[in-house]
C-alpha cells in the first residue's frame, strides 16, 4: 500500500486549510459547474477572461482535501496566463495525472511548480478524479469564456 504521506503533502494540506481564490465573480465573468458523481462533490469555477488573458479566477463548492487543494493551486497558477498557456498547462497537469492520450502533444517544458506535489495522487487511482475535478471544470469555463 502506498504511504499516505505521498497523498497528503504539506503544500496540499496548506491549500486545503487556507484555500486561495475562494469566492465568486460577478458577470461578465463566466462560470462552470463540475461534480463528481462518485462522492457528490461539486465545484464552481468563475473565470474572467479579457483580451485572451485570464484576468481573474475564483472557485466555490464542496469537496475533499484533494479536490479543494488541487483547485486552489490551479487558480493561483492560471491567473494572468493567456488562454493558450492555460490550455497547455491543463494538458501538462492531466499528463502528470496519467490522463492524456498518446496522440495528445504535451509541452514538457511547461512547469507545474507547486502542483507537482499532486503527483502522489497517481498512486491512489480513485483520487485522480478528485484532483482533476476543478481542472475539467476550468476547461469548461474557458470554453464558455472564449465562445
Amino acid at each position: 500500500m502506498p504511504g499516505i504521506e505521498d497523498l497528503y503533502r504539506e503544500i496540499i494540506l496548506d491549500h486545503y486549510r487556507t484555500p486561495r481564490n475562494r469566492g465568486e465573480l460577478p458577470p461578465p465573468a463566466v462560470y462552470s459547474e463540475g461534480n463528481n458523481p462518485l462522492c457528490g462533490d461539486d465545484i464552481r469555477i468563475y473565470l474572467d477572461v479579457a483580451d485572451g488573458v485570464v484576468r481573474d479566477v475564483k472557485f466555490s463548492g464542496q469537496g475533499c482535501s484533494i479536490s479543494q487543494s488541487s483547485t486552489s493551486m490551479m487558480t493561483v497558477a492560471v491567473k494572468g496566463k493567456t488562454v493558450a498557456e492555460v490550455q497547455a498547462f491543463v494538458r501538462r497537469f492531466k499528463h502528470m495525472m496519467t490522463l492524456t492520450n498518446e496522440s495528445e502533444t504535451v509541452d514538457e517544458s511547461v512547469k507545474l511548480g507547486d502542483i507537482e506535489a499532486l503527483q502522489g495522487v497517481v498512486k491512489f487511482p480513485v483520487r485522480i478524479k478528485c484532483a482533476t475535478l476543478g481542472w475539467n471544470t476550468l476547461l469548461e469555463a474557458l470554453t464558455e469564456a472564449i465562445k
Partner: protein
Amino acid sequence: MVTTLTEASHNMSFDSAVIRRDFPLLAKQIDGKPLVYLDSANTSQKPNAVIDAMANFMRESYAPINRSAYTLAANATEQYEGARAAVAKFINAKSAREIVFTKNATEALNLIVSSWGRANLKTGDVVLLTHMEHHANIVPWQMLQQERGIELRWVPLTSDFQLDLTSLTSLLSGVKVFSFTSMSNVLGTINPVEKLCAAAHAAGAISIVDACQSVPHSPSDVQSWGADFATFSGHKMCGPSGVGVLWGREELLEAMPPFLGGGNMITDVRLDGFTCAELPAKFEAGTPPIAEVVGLGAAVEYLTNIGMANVRQHEISLSSYVLDLLTNRFGDDITIHGPRNPELRGATFSFAFRGIHPHDISQILDQSNVCVRAGHHCAKPLMKIIGANATTRASFYLYNTTTDADTLADALDSASDIF
C-alpha cells in the same frame, strides 16, 4: 423484524468471531494487518459455503436450464429451481412461482415500474415514495413520470431520522402505489413495514418494499408484511453479485405484461405474435445467472442455518456497542446521522467527523485496512435533506465483531492527526 426468544435460544452458539472464519477473504491480511470490512450495506463478503457451491456447480453440474432433455441439464434445472424454492421459504412467500430472479434489486424495481407501472398508471396518478429512498426506488419512477406525467409524493423525515407518519393518511389520499425502503441504506432506520403496507392498502394503493437492506439482516415474512411486491439483492446477503430477487403476489405477477422479451419467457412465438410463459419464467428472459442463483440458494441455506433472528440480535448488540463507543470517545466531534435506539436501526452508521471530508476519512481508514464507504450512497435527495454532500458510512454484518468497531475508532483518531 422482532427477535423471538425461542428462535434465538435455538442457537446460543452465535459467535461472530467463529462465523468470520467461514469467510476466507476476511482472513486476508494487508501489510500484516487484518482486514476490517465495514462496507456490507454496499456488498457483503462471501462464505465458503457459497464459494464452494458455485465452484462445485460449475465444475460438476453446469448446464443450461429449462431447455434441454439430457440428465446434466435436468440436474442443473433442479438446482436452479431448488434455489428458487429456498428463497421463497426464506421470505415466506406463498409459492416459488412468486420468486423472479433478476440481475439485482435495481432491476427488480425497474421491472415493477416498467411492467406493473406502465400497465396500471396514467397521467395524474400518484406514487408515494419517502425521503429516505435509494436512487433505485426514485429514478425508475421519475422515468415513468417523464413518460406518463404521474405525480410523485414524498413522506418526509422526523428530526430523529424516522419517517414522519403524522400526515400519512392525507399523503396516501388518491395514491396508487406506496413504494418504500424497509431500512435506510444511509441512516440505518428500520421502517414499520407492516404498518406502512396496511396504510397503503387502506388507501387503496399497492405497497412495494425495497427490502435490500433488511432481508440480509433480519427475518423476513412477506405475507405478514402484507406487501404486494418486495425486492432485494443476492450480493448483500452473502450471495454473489449478478442476481437479485423480485417477489410479487401471484395474482399481480399473473396480470402483468412481460418485462424483457426473448427466450425462456414464451410458450409460443409465431410470425404474428407470441404467447407468454407461465410464472416465473415470464419474467426471466434469456439465460439467467445460473451459477449465481445456485450461489444465492447456498447463501440462503447458510443464513438459515445461522438463524436470521440471531443475526438481528447480534446486530442490535453490535449497534449498541458502536453507538456507545463512538459517542463516548468522540462526543461532539462525531455526528451520527441516524436513530440512537439500536432496536430501531440496523448496524449501518453514516457520520460526519471533525469536519474532515468523508473521502479523506476513508482514505486514512484504509491505512488501517478499515473499509468504509464515502459519498452520497446513491441517496442524493436524502443527503440534501440531512444537509450533507457526503458522509462516511460504516456498515456491520454477522461477521463483524466489537474488535472491528474498536479498530474503526482508533483509525478515526489517526485521521485527526493528519488534518
